[in-house]
């Protein structure tokens, strides 16, 4: 099947449309089945993927608006492949574990449309199609936060929408400018990213364009100081909303850096290493400190997820294969681990209708299964060896060490700080005396909840022990991209920066 990417994008959308007809009581089963089929389709994509090929595969191209250079252009490489699989997996598991009962049919349909836009973002190779899915993904999320969220849901939903929308409009101007330059040089209009890769831009253009794209992506990541929308979004969103937001939507930002900023503006990217590293460090350390101070369990997870996004950003700008592959691997692990943690918090919230740490204590005695799974996910989040969190974080730190040992050491504190605030959660919630009467009546995880979490636990351990099947293709594409960036870079310092890392790789 050559057009599997189109199928992957539009299958959930068609299913969402047809879902309007499905009976309310059967909506959940319908949604889970559709998400499962979608997940198997994405697995099929993995199996038919040519691991040795570092370029774009399953490419589809249909000109849509040739006068404006817009075409329906899809493709996947090693970088996007696993993010797609992670997206479909997290949608499936999020849906399966969902405890929501209010308006379940609307929720299922919204999630299916959201899945279309998320997959669309990761397979789009045309900037306008990318932008289209990128913006469209805001609408279902707005609805999920706004309709099922907490007491301040409307404020949170609008803040989320407007913040991202503003950033992406600046990015859109950047895209239009790139298209304009492309037109000036070649006489043809094109928004195809692969065409844009061929552009060698003067450094000052690169800097401006990097800044324009940076605004769009950084708000989505969210980078400090653009992160203020995320505590609201996570705080008010229902569990499924937080799961998807943390697992997939944030990845759109970092993916955008890999897909656009790095290969298109290599010189500007090299120049931006220091400022971005500083911002990422602030993200890592500052949000970890905030996480420690939180009284609300979900906010701890929310801030820890931002803190880990800092590590991903750091890896992206290491400009070498270890850093980049590690950071892409970390995107996957962050998606799975923080998604699982949000699900776990949601499960306790459903039982007790509170997320305040002070309300809990000694839960391990009444909910042993819950405590074990929570513990594993928590360790993975901290980056314990032999869990998925370790691989990415380690690679990123190795990668960035070649750039700046000082920053790497500071960033390495994230593991310590992470351990501090995560173990605090563990201590307050699961250990200590079981003194709250209400907690004594708590039931352990039921079958549905257990079985939706076990696959994630399995992945966390499997990829922690043996990451090669995933790291291999990522590494391939990353190396191809790096050597391409090296060729394309015009300033000597950029060439040095990118080459240094390659030679050290060869030396090993």
């Amino acid at each position, binding site marked *: 099947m050559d057009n599997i990417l189109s199928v992957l994008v539009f299958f959930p959308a068609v299913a969402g449309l047809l879902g309007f007809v499905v009976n309310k009581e059967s909506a959940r089963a319908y949604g889970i089945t559709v998400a499962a089929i979608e997940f198997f389709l994405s697995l099929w994509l993995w199996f038919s993927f040519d691991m040795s090929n570092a370029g774009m595969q399953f490419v589809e191209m249909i000109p849509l608006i040739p006068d*404006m250079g817009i075409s329906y252009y899809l493709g996947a490489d090693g970088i996007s492949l696993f993010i797609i699989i992670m997206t479909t997996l997290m949608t499936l598991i999020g849906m399966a574990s969902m405890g929501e009962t209010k308006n379940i049919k609307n929720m299922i349909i919204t999630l299916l449309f959201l899945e279309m836009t998320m997959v669309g973002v990761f397979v789009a190779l045309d900037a306008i199609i990318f932008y289209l899915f990128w*913006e469209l993904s805001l609408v279902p999320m707005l609805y999920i936060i706004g309709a099922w969220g907490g007491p301040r849901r409307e404020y949170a939903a609008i803040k989320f929408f407007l913040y991202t929308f503003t950033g992406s409009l*600046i990015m859109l101007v950047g895209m239009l400018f790139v298209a304009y330059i492309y037109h000036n040089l070649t006489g043809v209009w094109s928004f195809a990213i692969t065409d844009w890769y061929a552009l060698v831009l003067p450094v000052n253009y690169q800097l401006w364009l990097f800044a324009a794209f940076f605004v769009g992506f950084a708000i989505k990541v969210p980078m400090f100081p653009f992160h203020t929308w995320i505590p609201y979004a996570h705080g008010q969103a229902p569990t499924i909303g937080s799961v998807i937001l943390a697992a997939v939507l944030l990845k759109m930002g970092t993916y955008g850096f890999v897909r656009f900023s790095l290969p298109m503006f290599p010189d500007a990217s090299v120049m931006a290493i220091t400022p971005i590293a500083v911002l990422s460090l602030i993200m890592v350390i500052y949000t970890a400190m905030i996480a420690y101070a939180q009284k609300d369990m979900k906010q701890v997870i929310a801030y820890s997820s931002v803190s880990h996004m800092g590590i991903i950003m750091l890896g992206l700008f290491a400009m070498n294969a270890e850093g980049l592959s590690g950071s892409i691997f970390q995107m996957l692990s962050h998606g799975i681990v923080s998604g699982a943690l949000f699900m776990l918090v949601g499960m306790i919230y459903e039982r007790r209708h509170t997320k305040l740490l002070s309300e809990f204590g000694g839960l391990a005695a009444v909910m042993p299964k819950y405590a074990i799974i929570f513990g594993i996910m928590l360790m993975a989040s901290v980056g314990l060896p032999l869990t998925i969190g370790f691989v990415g974080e380690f690679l990123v730190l190795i990668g960035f060490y070649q750039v700046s040992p000082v920053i790497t050491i500071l960033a390495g504190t994230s593991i310590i700080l992470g351990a501090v605030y995560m173990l605090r959660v563990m201590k307050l919630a699961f250990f200590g005396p079981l003194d709250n009467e209400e907690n004594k009546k708590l039931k352990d995880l039921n079958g549905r909840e257990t079985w939706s979490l076990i696959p994630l636990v399995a992945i966390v351990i499997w990829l922690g022990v043996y990451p090669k099947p995933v790291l291999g293709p990522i590494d391939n594409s990353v190396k191809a991209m790096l050597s391409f960036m090296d060729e394309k870079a015009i300033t000597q310092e950029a060439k040095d920066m990118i080459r240094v890392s390659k030679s050290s790789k060869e030396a090993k």
Partner: protein
Amino acid sequence: MLEPINVSLESLNLITLAPMLIAIAGGLIILILDLINEKLDKSLYVMLTVLILFIDFGSVLGLNVNERGFFDVMLIDGISIISQLMIIGASMIFIPLALTSRRFHEYSYPEFFALFLFMIAGFQFMVATDNLILIFVGIETASLALYTLIALHNRANSYEAAVKYFTMGALAAAFFAMGSAIVYALTGSIELYKVAEIMATRMNEPGLMIAIFGSSVFLLVAFAFKLSLFPFHTWAPDVYEGASAPLAGYMSVVPKIAAFVVSIRIFGMYIDLGVEWVRITILVLAVLTMTLANIMALVQGDVKRMLAYSSISHAGFIMAALALDTTEGNTSIFLYYALFMFTNLGAFAMLWISRHKKRRFNARYDHPYEKFAGLVQIMPMGAVVMGLFMLSLAGVPPFSVFWGKIYVMQAAVNAGYIWLAIVMGLNSAIAAYYYLKLIVYMFLKDPVKDVDTVYYNISKPLMAIIGFATLATVAAIFYVQPLVSYLYYMISASGY
């Protein structure tokens, strides 16, 4: 002894007049029908109007590009053809909105339909000439008919709206007349192509620049009134509020298309002559219009007023494209309106559906936000459709207005105005807030309990129109390409 003037019929090229004559004849037919039988139902007049517009549409399509006729007064170039097509097309969508299930006063008069057709003829005259006097005649014909149509809504604030619009329109007409007079005094001609030639030769004369400035100021003010640009926009929200919802939607599209065509002809000429001052003024006006109207729209308590301010802001958006004076810029004006037309008319039609005879929710407004609270629970399809229109207006892809927006922004970038594109982007972000506000009310809030919320003004024809508008909004991605290439071809063929 005067020489007898011999004019051959061929040289008149009367076919260029045919579209307007069809509209006028149609209006007369409706009046005659009413004379013969007074009891005819509005549905007959509606369908008759649509049929006449259909013939009108066909006759415009049949015109050849770049022809002159009727003592060279009529000018049928690319932009006059596409703007006529758009005017007639929008009118054809608009007029069936009269077929509501409740009866509203104005549509029971056949005069409404006759006036409507005369108004269209007026707009057609406006766009199909470059003669300043005929433009003036067209503006006045169309405006006088429009004032009456507004007043026919038969409410206290409709009269207020009509009188306000009339006063402002008269002022604008006066400015236009004075501006034209100066142009005539400078060049001895009222035909723009001759004016441009003569002015070009006299550009270097010292002391003349002040007169050229003067003429451009007067004309600019006149069209700023018509296009509701800041600071001449203050009439627009009140007039839109007073007019019936579909007419308000209509006013935010059709008269503006006509006014934009004339603006392209007049101000394009000034910019081509190298009067940079005009370009800068237009840019400043455009930026102020889009920004301030957006900020005003944020604080409105009534959806109709919000949409009124939003359409002012959209007009500012497009005005900026006019200042670029490139083929792409001019194409973007038409593309934007062609795409905006469906969405905006659709949104106003949705207001029309929700219109009650009495104000149930608020003593002051017909369509306060509270009215739409929880609409998704009462009328799920209606809420989804309205939500789509709002998203489209906010510029969320892949809905129609987005394609207009990126084309305008691309045109701005291509002309070297990157700051303008960024201003446009930021303005779209501001605008997203008030569109979202309605979405939040419709989808995320519960209905107001103590008011009996029924939306009964729907009927099959209205559903068909709204369905069509929705389709055009959602499926825009598939027809943008032919639209762009047709518009671009027509505009470049007429040399703009």
